[in-house]
């Protein structure tokens, strides 16, 4: 494999609150190749959003990145001075947020906002910048783009606003886009349109993507590899189809088994007992152990990530592949 565009090693982000230290991201590592889409899956509070924010240096006090490196094309973003990081943010790495109503400025037209984003990184004539903005709007599927540039965010539907946010993220053809649940707030028919477009855009432009989501089905249709987060760490990673067909970590297996599609309608679903632990008081050893039916004495220690080629899991008692059932 060629050198990764993005290489994250041991990323650790803690929040120093009055109640104690919240280990929101605890030693996350992964690589991302050019044009690759990685799905980052987990439940609320698993640290997937904070991981995304940490990559762009967007963590605010009381949070702090306490350890690790984020190498974008070989440069460690975490050691850069703030001004250098700002010069790269939006140009080399950009982010799409969940809520398109909150991310666009209601007082500016779409065109004004897009021009601001262009001018932040490039000196272009107004005409050239407008042409670029219109081109990108067309690319993300917004009809009569030139006219729409003069419209305000409230004149767009939710799906259209998210397309605008995607167009802004794509303005400088960044090497990496971090997308934080960008279709969660949208209807399924609009979500399908956007997923299709994002997949084509990644293939066309060579932009690598980190797609953060709680929805396994969404990422499985988009990402070529997956990382599953639980309590601030990646507990399993690997190529999407492999990982979903043959999950090794009991948490991943439990998540997949609990999907309604996995059970005959009307029958009880397979459920994971208990709830996610508080990040303030994590159990000793493996954080999933208290909910896990495979746990033993050994799970009082913290399992390391195993290295099995392109797959890995953090578990002493991984689920083994069930015997092949002839179809």
């Amino acid at each position: 494999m060629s050198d990764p565009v993005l290489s994250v090693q041991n990323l650790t982000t803690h929040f120093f609150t009055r109640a104690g230290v919240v280990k929101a991201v605890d030693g996350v590592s992964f690589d991302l190749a050019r044009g690759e889409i990685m799905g980052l899956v987990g439940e609320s509070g698993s640290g997937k959003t904070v991981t995304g924010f940490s990559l762009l240096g967007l963590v605010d006090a009381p949070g702090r990145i306490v350890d690790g490196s984020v190498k974008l094309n070989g440069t460690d973003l975490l050691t850069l001075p703030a001004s250098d990081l700002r010069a790269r943010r939006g140009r080399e790495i950009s982010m799409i947020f969940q809520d398109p109503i909150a991310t666009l400025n209601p007082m500016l037209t779409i065109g004004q906002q897009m021009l601001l984003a262009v001018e932040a990184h490039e000196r272009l004539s107004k005409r050239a910048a407008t042409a670029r903005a219109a081109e990108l709007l067309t690319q993300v599927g917004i009809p009569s783009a030139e006219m729409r540039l003069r419209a305000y965010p409230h004149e767009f539907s939710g799906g259209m606003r998210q397309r605008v946010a995607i167009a802004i993220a794509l303005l400088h053809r960044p090497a990496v886009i971090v997308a934080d649940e960008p279709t969660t707030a949208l209807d399924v028919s609009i979500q399908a349109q956007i997923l299709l477009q994002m997949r084509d855009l990644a293939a066309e432009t060579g932009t690598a993507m980190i797609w953060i989501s709680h929805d396994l089905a969404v990422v499985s249709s988009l990402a070529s590899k997956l990382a599953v987060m639980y309590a601030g760490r990646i507990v399993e990673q690997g190529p999407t189809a492999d990982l979903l067909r043959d999950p090794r970590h009991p948490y991943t297996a439990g998540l997949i088994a609990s999907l309604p599609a996995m059970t005959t309608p009307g029958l009880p679903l397979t459920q994971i007992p208990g709830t996610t632990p508080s990040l303030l008081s994590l159990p000793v050893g493996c954080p999933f152990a208290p909910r896990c039916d495979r746990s033993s004495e050994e799970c009082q220690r913290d399992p390391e990530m195993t290295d099995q080629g392109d797959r890995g899991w953090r578990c002493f008692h991984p689920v083994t592949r069930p015997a092949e059932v002839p179809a």
Partner: protein
Amino acid sequence: MSVFLKIDDVSRLFGPKLSTGEKIAAKLGAKVETRSVRAVSDVSLSIRKGETLGLVGESGCGKSTLGRLIAGILPPTSGSVSIDAAAVMENGRKVTTRVQTVFQDPFASLDPRMKVGETVAEGPIAHGLTTKSGAKTYVAEWFERVGLDPVWVDRYPHQFSGGQRQRIAIARALAMKPDVLICDEPVASLDVSIQAQIINLFLELTQGLDLTCVFISHDLSVVQHVSDRVAVMYLGRIVELGPVAEVFGQPAHPYTAALFGSVPKLVLDADELVRFDSIEGEVPSPLSPPSGCYYHPRCPLASDKCRTAQPATTEISDLRAVACHHFETQLSGQ
């Protein structure tokens, strides 16, 4: 088929509330918005005792409004809802406790300043299902029934997780001993692993208590799992109705087919190129719905007839109905 819950030609309009000034201005010819939205339009449904009806559709299709009309939270503009031949509302007021609702957001639906035990006991005491002195045991029974520890009755909502709060909301609804339960997106705000727990609780309770349910959700896989029949809504109308297996297996309305086609499925085959049959365009504004069939601007089967004439609801079989001029083409094209 004996009908238990009957929804008879129900419509609900939401119009702007005009101030006196605006009314005068409108009379004088100023531009004042006077159009109203038909959130629910001529909906008729017959639901049997013990049946769970799934109600699906995209945001703005009127599924929550219909839920509120059935629950007696909103009065219908026309039409009526009755349970066991007794009206749910009379003169714009709810006159029965036989229908209760579980709402989407358990963070908003519980009073943060009331102990959860008091929240659950409030309705039953007011309606004489229990006494003030007996409330404690009564509430404890329901807490156990929904899988909560009865010692938690003196806690406040903020001390519970989302899944636990939804259990409290379910206990509050069931403590009223309803015959009909309206669930408005009860698992939408919960995490995947918690979703399964609540769905299982729902299945267990509806079967154990012989409840008749209307289960509203945008998540088709959840609806498929819990419902006996499903109704698909588009812009305030029911476009298709039928047993879950039949509707999901062989949709008769082009919208149903397209909606199901756009749901991402868990892909387990690396070589399989995922394709979505995404629907073109967006849902039109309900303020100015298209002429004829509301779905025709997005429909691959649309003809001239669809642009002018609203399709009537046709019964395909005993339990199945569809509102489309071309449902035969849709059914035979699969």
